């Protein structure tokens, strides 16, 4: 057996937020202010409501920004709400977001943090 070792993080949530392009920056800022450690932003193209609205659909940008944030279960709903408010998702055409449970997560975690958290 190898002497290498994995620390599994549990109680982790994934928040995914699909936004009209250009809105990611504000949403990220809000998430970080609520304690989110980091985020992945990717660019995507969306279809859906936009195509079913006729000409008024041009007001919604086809290009999307997808923000993905991994948060602890405790902080997750607070981060989620902050992102929702910062992105103005309560107005039409801005975007959609969802939260999902993650079974477990692994990454590099410094030794001292692992040991201090265990106590």
């Amino acid at each position, binding site marked *: 057996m190898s002497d290498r070792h994995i620390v599994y993080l549990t109680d982790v949530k994934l928040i995914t937020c699909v936004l009209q392009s250009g809105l990611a920056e504000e949403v990220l800022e809000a998430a970080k202010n609520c304690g989110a450690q980091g985020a992945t932003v990717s660019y995507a193209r969306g279809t859906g409501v936009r195509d079913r609205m006729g000409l008024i659909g041009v007001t919604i940008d086809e290009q999307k920004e997808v923000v993905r944030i991994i948060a602890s279960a*405790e902080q997750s709903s607070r981060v989620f709400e902050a992102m929702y408010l910062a992105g103005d998702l309560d107005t039409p055409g801005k975007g959609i977001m969802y939260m999902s449970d993650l079974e477990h997560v692994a990454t590099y975690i410094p030794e001292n943090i692992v040991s201090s958290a265990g106590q």
Partner: protein
Amino acid sequence: MRYGEFVAKHKIRHTELSYNLLTPKPDPSDTKSMRPERIQVSATRAAALLGPYCSVRLMEQLKAVVPLAGYLLIFQLLVLNHPIQEAFSLFVGLVAVIVGLAVFMEGLNVGLMPFGTIIGDNLPKKASMFVVLVIIGILGVGVTFAEPAIGALQAFGSSVDVTKAPYLYELLNRWTLPLVLIVGAGVGLAAILGTIRFVRGWSLKPMIYWALVPVVILTGYCWLDPNLRSILGLAWDCGAVTTGPVTVPLVLSLGIGIANAAGKGNSSLSGFGVVTMASLFPIMAVLALSIFVSFQISPEEIIAAAQAQSSAVVAEPTVWDQTPVSEVVLGVRAILPLVLFLMFVLFIVLKSSLPNRMVTVYGLILSILGMCIFNVGLTYGLGAIGGQTGSVLPAAFMELPISPASPIFSEVVGLIIVIGFAFLLGFGATLAEPALNALGLTVQKLTNGAFKKSMLMYSVAGGVSVGIALGIAKLVIGFDLATVLIPLYAVGVILTVFSSEEFVNVGWDSAGVTTGPVTVPLVLAMGLGLGNAVSAVEGFGILSLASICPIIAVLSMGIYIQVMQSRAPKKTATSIEGLESE
């Protein structure tokens, strides 16, 4: 209360709703389509959607136009102590520029760009390389017509003094159509070569050398002929005018599509180089055209014809001169040929259809409408402001009949103030250009962070401001354009020899990027107004100086970075690591 419990608490009111209640129930008879229906948008919803949509696009242009125009007007009002004339029509004109550009850019993105992408993706599959190149060449002409800034050249032609610069007058007044056509032909040729370069993966350096040789020879020829000398400013300025917001993205999207189809689209640099070519070939084309004109007609004939015309036409101004109808006609004429040609290629050559017809038609209508509004604003807003400030600018250092207080300062102080004004104008205008920001980001990515975005932006802006200051100095002091331009280009070429391929691509392209649809008319009009006021032969040349100086600035910055990198290899390694971990 534990911290965790506090954090987990919801901040805002919320309710839960099962999505099952919202989705359609499966139809037992299985006859109805499950496809979601079309959404009816109520007026208030539409307003909520339209509000941010419009304001974002308007703000973008507002940020580009207002600081520049404001700077000019405040300088005129406070430093030159000259009242702003026709303030109302200026204001309306500026609003027209902002609205026109916003509408036009949206139309370009929604209407014209999809054409470019579809054609670029499909054309190489269905047509031979030769047909592809011919179509790209014709497209180059079309996009030049559609370029908002090209209208500025046509609009300001009448201000040239026929007796001092007969050929310049002739070209700008009676040869405007051939002039724009030949500039377009230059862009077309550049687009063709750029595409071949995409596919074959040629280096840009030899292309620059080979393009510069005929340009320099023709420039030398024109410079030696005293009648043709005045044409040089116009010719070199044309290069800067052509590379605007229509040409660059459309030609690029085509070229990249073709390079992808040829399987050579991997190089991150493939997007560069077209802009450089598109700013060098038009110079050559205009020079060739003016030499051709010089064989056709003698200066005496031009002067005689112009004088006969001016004495004949002085009669009352027609409706056309008083209303913006002519600008609207110009706008339609600028876009329509391009649209018709793109449609021809798409429907006849490719036999394909548009994916989203209604939205594309909407975009095309917007682009024509925007062009018309912008053209009105060009004449009454940007052109008028530039011309007004330019014509009172010399009041700082010499006596002007229109300004009672002139000369405001002593000659030396006045000159310094005017040149400083030009320097700041160039700096601000360049930093405000959105295309430069985009270029900066690309460059930062390309060089793994060694060439920072801010570094590129400041070196380009510095270059442009030196260029504009030099250009103004040229008009005021009256030195010869060629004697400055040729040595500057020589420096550019020498720097090119020593630079790496990436920096050559970026450096030579940065010149074209800086001259957008707001800066060009403003600077052109200011130059012409200033030229008239100090009775210089012609007011062109500022833009050409503003193109070469940033090239030199970026290339020398690139060489400096290369030297620093080779001296401190460890430091760059960490900076790349830092970028990756982001």
